[in-house]
């Protein structure tokens, strides 16, 4: 067992599960989507991205790409939240909540691809 692989797999899967947790619920209801969850998703995704740095294989490159896509979506979601609450003062209206959650939904799709790639890599590994 390679401890590096364990940590790697753990963070990739955790970023998907947390992302799913944040995403699930009514899309425009702010009560179903907690800010702490978004924070956790962001941090775990960042860790997963950094872990993928410096992997020279083709699969590693694609994994990094999916992670970067997820990061982009999540940062966009966090920015929308910050701007709505602190800058414009609109607050979490159903429209704002819907856009935040849909952005995180996109990130979840990227995370799903990451996990699928991880599974493919595991299956292809012949021992």
């Amino acid at each position, binding site marked *: 067992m390679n401890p590096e692989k364990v940590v790697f797999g753990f963070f990739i899967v955790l970023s998907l599960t947390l992302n799913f947790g944040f995403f699930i619920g009514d899309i425009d209801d702010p009560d179903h989507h907690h800010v702490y969850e978004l924070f956790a998703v962001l941090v775990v995704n960042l*860790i997963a991205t950094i872990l993928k740095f410096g992997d020279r294989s083709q699969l590693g490159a694609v994994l990094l790409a999916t992670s970067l896509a997820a990061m982009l979506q999540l940062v966009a979601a966090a920015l929308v939240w*910050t701007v709505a609450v602190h800058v414009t003062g609109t607050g979490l209206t159903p429209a704002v909540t819907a856009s935040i959650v849909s952005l995180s939904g996109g990130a979840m799709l990227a995370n799903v691809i990451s996990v699928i790639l991880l599974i493919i890599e595991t299956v292809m590994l012949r021992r």
Partner: protein
Amino acid sequence: MDNIVYLIFRRMRRPLITLLMVYSVTILGLVLIPGEDAAGNTHYMSFFHAFYFVSYTSTTIGFGEIPFEFTDAQRLWVTFAMYAGVIAWLYAIGTILTLVQDQTFQRALTESKLARHIRHQRDPFYIVCGYGETGSALVRGLTDAGQHVVVIEIDEFRSNMIQLDNLRLYVPSLHGDAQKPVHLQDAGLQSPYCQAVVAVTNDNEANLKIAITSKLLHPHIRVICRADSHDVEKNMASFGTDYIIDPFDTFATYLAISFQLPCLYLLQAWLFSGDEAELEEPIYPPRDRHWVVCGYGRFGKAVYHRLRQEGLDVVVIEAEPDNTGIPPEGVVQGRGTEADTLIEAGIERACGLIAGTDNDANNLSIVVTARELNDDLFFVVRQNHSDNSAIIEAVKADIVMHPSKIIADKIRVLLNAPLLYQFISLAYYQDNDWACELVARISAVLGDRAPVIEQVCINDDRSRAVSRVLARGENVKLGCVLLDSWDRQTRLNCIVLLMERHNERKLLPSEDTELKKGDHLLICGESSAFTRLFWNLQHDNILDYVRTGRVTQQGWLWRKLAGKKPR
């Protein structure tokens, strides 16, 4: 470039994760710890404010407590956050700085710079393996002539020295063992612009390996190798190395030429030595009495055999005859630097002396001692290091043999104008008067300028106008293209030395020779003559003028006015 990015990312993983963890823990703490607003109500910090606060404290900027003054519980947490954040940043920056100074990183950086340069190289270039005495002389000669070179050198110091050598062009130098295929590939062996590989390391085995690798990976490339032993030469020849150069055999051949055809020797030395060439007085090595050869190593043996072939008596002086072998006539034991050895070798009755040991100081000492004993000797001195040029020149030997320079000149000729080499081989079968006459002709054309040698091919690319005329079924005489396009009564200052047509070579072809497609011409002349010559070969109007003396109308209107039909 990829390498560097990966290297940075790989090394930065740990510091980045540390930084991220410190940020997220401190931000989370700030969000969770209750604070108070101005009115004393409980207030929780938002993630945005927490991130802002942590960003400016951990980078030691510090703007104060926002959005409200902190409670003591918050201050306790912030104290921890500040130390943790600053340490995490120091760790990350420290890692980057270490990385930048790291040897591996530096090498990766140089290698990627080099690889980029070679990838973007859009001019023909040569790969030179080994930047020793020969390599540096060769690289200087090639770059002075405006040719691009890539150097592979095993010694890091010498490889770095190239950039300090003040060469005319930028010469990328790869530090590595050229025996390893990967280094040759990095140097651009498989690039379509790579013209030739020259292996001039001081190791026969390495040269052999370079030749094999080059021929296997890029079969059509020209490979030129230096070899000191006949075994290795045979091995190299067996897989199609184009030219194998043995410095000692080469010099022995030169010496033989100087015995038989002094004028040809003169011509060769003049044409081969490039820009700094000066025509010297012909030398006539004496052959009336015996010769003394000091040193019976590789050089001594090669010279000894040549002198014997010339029918001369030779006395050999050798310090360690047990190691080098003994010639049939026996050997005088000693170094030759002391008078009694030289006297034993009969120096007073000899007519020539060859100081051919592998030590420059000894060679000089031999010459000085011998000159005291016999002033009329003809001296041949072997020079081993180019640094010693000044002192070797000071003893005023008749011939100085510097193996590195000989090889460098020869390789340069082979790369630039291989026909010149053929020319010398053919000229060897002519007599001395022929050679003397040729020297006189060339020096009359050139005056005191240095000769430029060019090889010209009659093809669509390099001589378009001639090809077009030939395609129309008309003929072009060799004499025509050698006329001055400003005034066809005068001739360009150049001489055609050799013409090659379908493996048939003709020395000094006559002016009436008709050019055919695929002809190769070896031309020697002054540099300005070549500019005009290339115009004659390339430009339709100019060629028409030098052929017929008429200026044809090329524009549509002028052709109409002249009443000719457009072609």
